[in-house]
């Protein structure tokens, strides 16, 4: 079990949180101009990095806020926790590996307005992956 340090509540057990998948995937800027291929990329394609991965977590049984986390997907070591809207911490290995071809990587620099509202939901978050 991971011990996750929520930016609002401090260290809590992983079971208090929900996973939200890859961070910094921005909503397409001009959705009406996307091709089917680009929509597929936005809806279904996420990085599956082996190594340092920027991802979103929701503290569902605590403050109910979303936040970002940098975690190694092999050792599971948590390398950084940072708020929605903040860029991926610089200097971390693999920085820049998280690209979203359809939408660019806008989310990592320009913070979406709804950044930490807690209402943002990942259309592709794999909680349904409990097959």
């Amino acid at each position, binding site marked *: 079990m991971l011990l996750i340090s929520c930016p609002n509540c401090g260290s809590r057990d992983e079971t208090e949180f929900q996973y939200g998948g890859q961070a910094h995937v921005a909503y397409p800027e001009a959705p009406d101009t996307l091709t089917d291929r680009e929509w*597929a990329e936005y809806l279904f394609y996420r990085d599956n990095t082996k190594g340092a991965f920027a991802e979103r977590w929701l503290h569902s049984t605590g403050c109910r806020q979303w936040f970002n986390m940098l975690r190694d*997907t092999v050792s599971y070591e948590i390398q950084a926790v940072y708020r929605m809207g903040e860029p991926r911490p610089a200097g971390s290995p693999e920085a820049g590996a998280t690209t979203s071809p359809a939408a660019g990587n806008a989310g990592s620099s320009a913070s979406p307005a709804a950044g930490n509202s807690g209402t943002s939901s990942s259309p592709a978050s794999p909680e349904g992956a409990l097959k």
Partner: protein
Amino acid sequence: MTTHQPPEHPDFLWRNPEPKSSYDAVIVGGGGHGLATAYFLAKNHGMTNIAVLEKGWLAGGNMARNTTIIRSNYLWDESAAIYEHALKLWEILPEELEYDFLFSQRGVMNLAHTLGDVRESIRRVGANKLNGVDAEWLDPQQVKELCPILNINDNIRYPVMGATYQPRAGIAKHDHVAWAFARKCDELGVDIIQNCEVTGFLKDGNRVVGVKTNRGTIHTEKVGLAAAGHSSVLAEMAGFRLPIQSHPLQALVSELHEPVHPTVVMSNHVHVYVSQAHKGELVMGAGVDSYNGYGQRGSFHVIEHQMAAAVELFPIFARAHVLRTWGGIVDTTLDASPIVGTTPVENMFVNCGWGTGGFKATPAAGLTFAHTIATGTPHKLNKPFALERFETGALIDEHGAAAVAH
């Protein structure tokens, strides 16, 4: 329940050749799917100048780690077709491969615990029957008759309200399946090369012409990726993306017990599934860890949760001891269906996305993937499972409740 033991192994199953400098086709990944693909390439398509490259030991990935449940009672037509084809192949393969891997058709039960489960289950039984898949709906009393150790009382949090049952489903000995395929591949001339990790690809424009490995460069006309949890890593090396997320999935066994559990019981709602292995261990599993992970281990809280469910359903398990737990890395897609077909790179093909339930598909995955690699076009059974479905929207959404557990 079959209690007979697996046969002694022959002293020799396959050669360990040095890689040649070129092959007609190279399969990346020596798990069940890679080996079955090589077998059908050789047997059905006469392609014998081929190699299976495995970075570790043969079938040491998910093939060695799964809980071996085989069934075909999937909801959608496309899934029922490919999994039922696999089940028919399991029924004839021990003879064809001349190797007994103890395929035991002891039936699989999928329990229903809510009104929603009941409705979904009855609908799935109907769909299965229309697709020629054997399926029955059992009431709690019939559940109890088939599996007397199951608790069907009302005094538990989620009482058993019935179950679907597929009599032809069951389990097999996974390692023996891999060895059976490997031995036949070897006989047919296929080179199985262990400790050979693919680290990159050689391309001529957009066409793959070879693979780089820790044991040198190998030229080839065709590459088939069958690397399960590492499919995204290989695709990235080749320059394309896959809609796959890798998750840890774990399982465990108890110490040996007298035969007490005659069938396979799965519950998606309380999330545990249990069978009893030929030697007597209780084999249990549950869901994936929620996060992406390449570490072959799962979290303890998942075990705690599944044990709570197991003990409620099977009170006699309360004093059994956990002997061993382990994890694999499963390659999940958003519609919980596999991807078998061509890729954006010419002459490179992919078989992945089988997630938590690809062992049962091994023979059909191999058959259809071999067809796709040999002819460059999909077999009719894997056509719907092309990568393009994520663009066209023709998803095969097996997440729909009970048909989705392993």
